[in-house]
């Protein structure tokens, strides 16, 4: 079994017992691989008491704190095999995570995303409205998580149209024209939560105009932090968008630049689903033991996809709970989770957003 085989399994059909067995084996091998190829990671593992060459349970796989990717270059492939370098943020003088991707890992990221999203929007590509400025992708060799998100989702779009200008202004007439060519058919709308609210919803509301997106499917990610500060809840977000463009399918996702592609999509019941391609543990903030389902703790994310850098087991700075396993009313198997906030004292970073006004 390797990650390639895992990708052959449907995104929401792997039973938990089998998944634990597969993940224990794959992640143990991967830990040894990264230990032998990344000296710094090897030292971290020694500090954490990891025993090389053993088969660990999923819980025993050492956790790399997400902040380490900001402090050091962690890479497990020779420099000439690095195909792209991705950063978690770009503009504001905050420290950025650097993620080194080889061809294999980049390809897996895209295929992972495709497997997950297909379960929600189907396999046909549809016109895509990107709620952002085309400037996000200025440098194609070094792109931000925001750019990576847009690029990753672009595979689902036939025609693609950016909704915002370089100055982050809504280009209403161009968007309307684009939607008219889609002729009321399905449209994928993609963007970052805060940008959609600030530069799409609020811009439309201020103009007093609407857009015909009754058949749209809106996918947004990047964190709620900024909107929580403005007291905009998920419910307010959905209702607002419904008002200005008639859209009823509005889905959030959770994910991070350090494991791009392995996203946690919100289902029709409002839960974020863990796919076959990654796993989650909730860690107690005091002793880092695993929390029972329903108990809040720090989120650990794991995936055998992280081949070119040691990011297969990451302790995030987000808090959350596992709501249940295998029994979400939407019918998808596996764990489903809820994000509840960020741990105190974590370095403030807006998420992939890093978008500063």
């Amino acid at each position: 079994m390797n990650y390639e085989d895992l990708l052959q399994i449907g995104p929401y059909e792997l039973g938990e017992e089998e998944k634990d067995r597969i993940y224990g084996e794959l992640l143990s091998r991967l830990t040894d691989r990264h230990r032998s190829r990344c000296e710094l990671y090897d030292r971290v593992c020694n500090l954490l008491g990891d025993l090389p060459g053993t088969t660990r349970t999923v819980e025993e796989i050492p956790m790399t704190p997400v902040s380490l990717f900001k402090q050091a270059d962690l890479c497990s492939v020779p420099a000439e095999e690095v195909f792209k370098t991705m950063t978690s943020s770009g503009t504001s003088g905050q420290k950025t995570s650097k993620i080194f991707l080889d061809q294999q890992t980049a390809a897996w990221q895209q295929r992972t995303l495709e497997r997950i999203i297909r379960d929600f929007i189907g396999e046909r590509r549809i016109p895509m409205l990107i709620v952002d400025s085309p400037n996000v992708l200025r440098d194609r060799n070094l792109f931000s998580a925001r750019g990576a998100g847009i690029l990753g989702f672009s595979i689902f779009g036939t025609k693609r149209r950016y909704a915002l200008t370089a100055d982050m202004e809504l280009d209403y007439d161009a968007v309307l024209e684009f939607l008219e060519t889609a002729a009321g058919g399905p449209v994928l709308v993609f963007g970052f939560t805060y940008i959609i609210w600030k530069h799409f919803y609020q811009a439309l509301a201020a103009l007093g105009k609407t857009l015909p997106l009754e058949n749209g499917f809106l996918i947004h990610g990047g964190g709620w932090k900024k909107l929580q500060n403005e007291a905009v809840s998920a419910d307010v977000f959905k209702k607002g968008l419904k008002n200005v463009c008639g859209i009823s399918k509005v889905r959030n996702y959770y994910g991070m630049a350090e494991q791009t592609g392995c996203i946690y999509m919100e289902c029709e019941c409002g839960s974020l689903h863990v796919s076959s391609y990654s796993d989650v543990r909730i860690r107690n903030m005091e002793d880092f033991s695993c929390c029972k389902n329903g108990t809040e703790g720090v989120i650990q994310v794991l995936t055998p996809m992280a081949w070119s850098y040691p990011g297969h087991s990451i302790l995030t700075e987000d808090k959350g709970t596992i709501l249940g396993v295998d029994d979400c009313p939407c019918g998808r198997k596996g764990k489903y989770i809820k994000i509840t906030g960020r741990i105190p004292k974590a370095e403030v970073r807006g998420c992939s957003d890093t978008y500063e006004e």
Partner: protein
Amino acid sequence: MSNLETYNKIFRSMFRKTDEELPALKYRGIALWDSIGHMDLMGELEEAFDIRIDTQDVLDFTSYEKGKEVLGRYGVVIE
């Protein structure tokens, strides 16, 4: 123009390569054929052959040669 000529012409102009260099081209093998280049390539091919490539086939289109097989699934024979 034959399908092969159209196919080659798109590859040559997008990736600035000669006919002789085309058979070795792979997705992510050269800087221009990255994910941005890939989606542009899909758009060009869809327009030229009047087809719509499904998402999975977009990702299955991993090289110049493999692309011929993918287009075959849409009734576009490249030979």
